[in-house]
């Protein structure tokens, strides 16, 4: 086979996923923390890495940043093997762990200057780089503050600034929105989107799923070390939408039993047991796999029965539902 030309090689290289994980397994004695995890991520994408506590998220991240060895499988970032090319990985990845890692008696500028020097950035370029990352993260006013005197939200910003110092291709952020107030959370979300806009590839773990849903292109759900769902947010939502929840709000609680009867008659036999009657709310709630046509027919039957219907609505499902659905299917949280 002829060798690819330099142009072809570049093209091939840029087409390759930035993050490639294949059959990644990590065992601690008899405990399997990661079980054959495989996923890939393209340049400029934001991956939301979701899982309950102890699911294997941090283990995966530690392997990706080269501070943990997998038992089997491989992980590559921008073509560099996370095990054998650990030094290259350090330049390619900016890692923000869930603990800040601050030093006492150090001002923010000195703190960033130290990490810049640790990455071998020359003194003059470093000064400029520190100013740039402070500007990017909106932390310039904090530059003379002592690190230990910063609030949690401020620390998170400085943590992101630290990961940006050596201009890495991939940013791995462990729980960046954890413990932030609503305003700080919005600012963090905007910051992450800005970074993705700058061409950075981001892997973000979080327990605050609505936050992830707003910024992620791709979502990976992991429980008990196994990948349960992976793909674009739309695809995952479509998968869980196989079952949709519908609420019928009546004007009068006295008609709920009659409405429930009409609905049961209109549903396939297997779904009839899932019809819930809530007289206190004057509501009937049911799950169905039916499509929009089936729902239209059901609504028609309710109207034909002259029942006083105030609202007929599908309960919107979000990432939290998807997550709960996945964790329930895999036997609950680890």
């Amino acid at each position, binding site marked *: 086979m002829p060798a690819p030309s330099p142009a072809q090689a570049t093209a091939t290289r840029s087409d390759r996923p930035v993050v490639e994980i294949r059959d990644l397994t990590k065992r601690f004695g008899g405990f399997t923390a990661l079980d054959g995890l495989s996923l890939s991520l393209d340049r400029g994408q934001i991956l939301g890495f979701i899982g309950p506590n102890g699911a294997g998220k941090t283990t995966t991240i*530690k392997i990706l*940043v*080269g*501070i*943990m*060895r997998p038992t089997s499988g491989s992980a590559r970032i921008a073509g560099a093997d996370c*095990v054998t090319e*650990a*030094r290259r990985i*350090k*330049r390619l*990845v900016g*890692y923000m*762990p869930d*603990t*800040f*890692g*601050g*030093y*006492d*008696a*150090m*001002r*923010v*500028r*000195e703190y960033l*200057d*130290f*990490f*810049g*020097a*640790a*990455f*071998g950035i*020359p*003194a003059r370029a*470093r*000064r400029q780089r*520190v100013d740039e990352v402070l500007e990017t993260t909106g932390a310039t006013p*904090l530059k*003379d*503050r*002592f690190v230990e*005197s910063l609030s949690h939200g401020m620390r998170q910003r400085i943590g992101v600034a*630290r990961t940006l110092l050596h201009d890495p291709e991939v940013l791995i952020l462990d729980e960046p929105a954890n413990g932030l107030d609503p305003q700080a959370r919005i600012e963090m979300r905007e910051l992450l989107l800005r970074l993705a806009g700058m061409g950075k590839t981001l892997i973000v773990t979080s327990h605050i799923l609505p936050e992830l849903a707003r910024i992620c292109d791709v979502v990976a759900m992991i429980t008990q070390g196994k990948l349960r769902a992976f793909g674009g947010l739309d695809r995952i939502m479509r998968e869980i939408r196989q079952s949709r929840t519908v609420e019928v709000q009546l004007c009068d609680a006295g008609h709920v039993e009659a409405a429930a009867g009409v609905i049961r008659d209109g549903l396939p036999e297997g779904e009839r047991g899932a019809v819930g009657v809530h007289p206190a709310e004057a509501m009937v709630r049911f799950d169905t796999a039916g499509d929009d046509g089936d729902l239209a027919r059901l609504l028609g039957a309710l109207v034909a029965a002259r029942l006083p219907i105030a609202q007929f609505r599908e309960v919107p499902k979000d990432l939290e539902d998807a997550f709960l659905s996945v964790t329930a299917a895999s036997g609950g949280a680890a």
Partner: protein
Amino acid sequence: MTTVLGRELLAILRSPRAAAGLVAVALACVAVVLVRWPADGVADLSGTTSRGVLALFAWGLLACVLLLAPAFAAPSIVRERLRGTLMLLFNSPIHPWAIYAGKFLAILAFVAIVLAASLPAAAGCLALGGVDPWRQVAMLYAVLFLVAAQCVAIGLLVSSRTGGTDAAIRVTFAAVFALVFVTLGPRFLTQGQPGPAALVADWLRRLSPLPPVLEITGTTAGGAPGLAERGSALPPFFAAGGLLLAGLVAATLARFDHRIFDRARDAGKITDDQSLAVRSARRLFYLVDPQRRSAGIPSWLNPVLVKEFRTRKFGRLHWLLRLAAGCAVVSLLLTLAATSGTVAWGVETIGGLLVLLQVALVVVITPSLASGLVAAEREWGGWNLLRMTTLSGVRIALGKLGSVLWTVLLVLAATLPGYLMMITIKPTMASQVTLALVSVLLAVAMSIAVSAAVGSFFSSTTAATVTVSLVLLVIYLVPMGIWAFRDDPFGHAFVETALKATPLAAALAAIRMPGFTGYDLTPGAWWVAGTVTLAGLAVFALRIRRLLQPE
């Protein structure tokens, strides 16, 4: 109070440190008695053997109390404050004094358990004969108990005022060191003189537990002029010690309320941003302005070295200069005391005191600097960040060791004017001073290497600092303890071998300090110190390498 007391005591008893301490004390006490128990059926009617055992036993127990009580008391309040559990306690119906009393009594109860573990050995000591059960054994326990209470009170006071556990441990051990040893210093300088200074020095001396323990054991430690007292040392010790204890408790309780949480966040004021008048004034008053915006780390400097200096409160240049200036003043004062003729100790004794000052500084400063080199990073999450940088293990190790070495050398350099003046007074001492300085430098190297190596096995600064302090005290004090009992019960050859384990003794022998002139310790002690240093450095390097590797 009983709620806090029960919880605290259980927490202490469940800790591995407590279990290790208890087992070590029990085994050591049994070993002391067994070693000296008559094996050939001949009883020692003079009581020499039992007094020797009592002396070893008493000093050993005193060392235990001085190490254990502060180690448990120092982190007690500050750790709870940092974890947030102190806030919960203050929000409960328990009164602050009851919280304090619970903590105080729990640690004291643990020390009492440790002392109780030594009772069978005390009984063995009595069985050997020649020891008074009340005037010696019971009185010894009373002194130890008061010392323990003082140590706990100091630890809790420091713990309620400091911002971090490691700082609390450092300050507490420094305060205990001051209580035991530094309180004797003024008496050295003023003994035999009339006036208020001598009176104050005399009162200060009564705070130290060393004179009462010396009196109880009936030992006259060599090289300790001024320790003996005309009357009994015990009543003044109990009176002064009781007053000090009450003062410490009152000082802690005075601020043991919601104010303990009042810690303002530093606004990050910078001189560079101040008005011209403020900038000019600060330039005038400060040799090195701590509020000036620091320059970036130069490319030729190891960033870890700079980081280590900057992250220490006393590692900043202005503090190092103050520390060095303080040491220089003490050094010159000691030499001035020798030259003024008011104290007839001789240049050798002053030289010995200089050596003791230097090594004491090394033993006090080194654990606090070197034990947390790796442990603090691992405890606060900095280690994973360091691992993620492109710094090599060698640069990290060199930066960390260098930061300790430079600090300790700077402090020691400040004591050099004293030596220079000694050589000027007595030029023939030049070679002695050189030999002593080589020994002190080896003591520095050994202390740093051992501290760094031992500390690298821990992921908690508190545990690392306590263990390293213990190891260094054993290295330096055990040979000196054996020397204190030279001729009885230890022979010359045994003492000489023991002294070779510490470069401190080699330095004292080199300077011809009274009591050390009969021992030939160089180059034997240098070889031992060199070997231990290399072994320590090798262990530290291996630990850094291991910790940098993927898990």
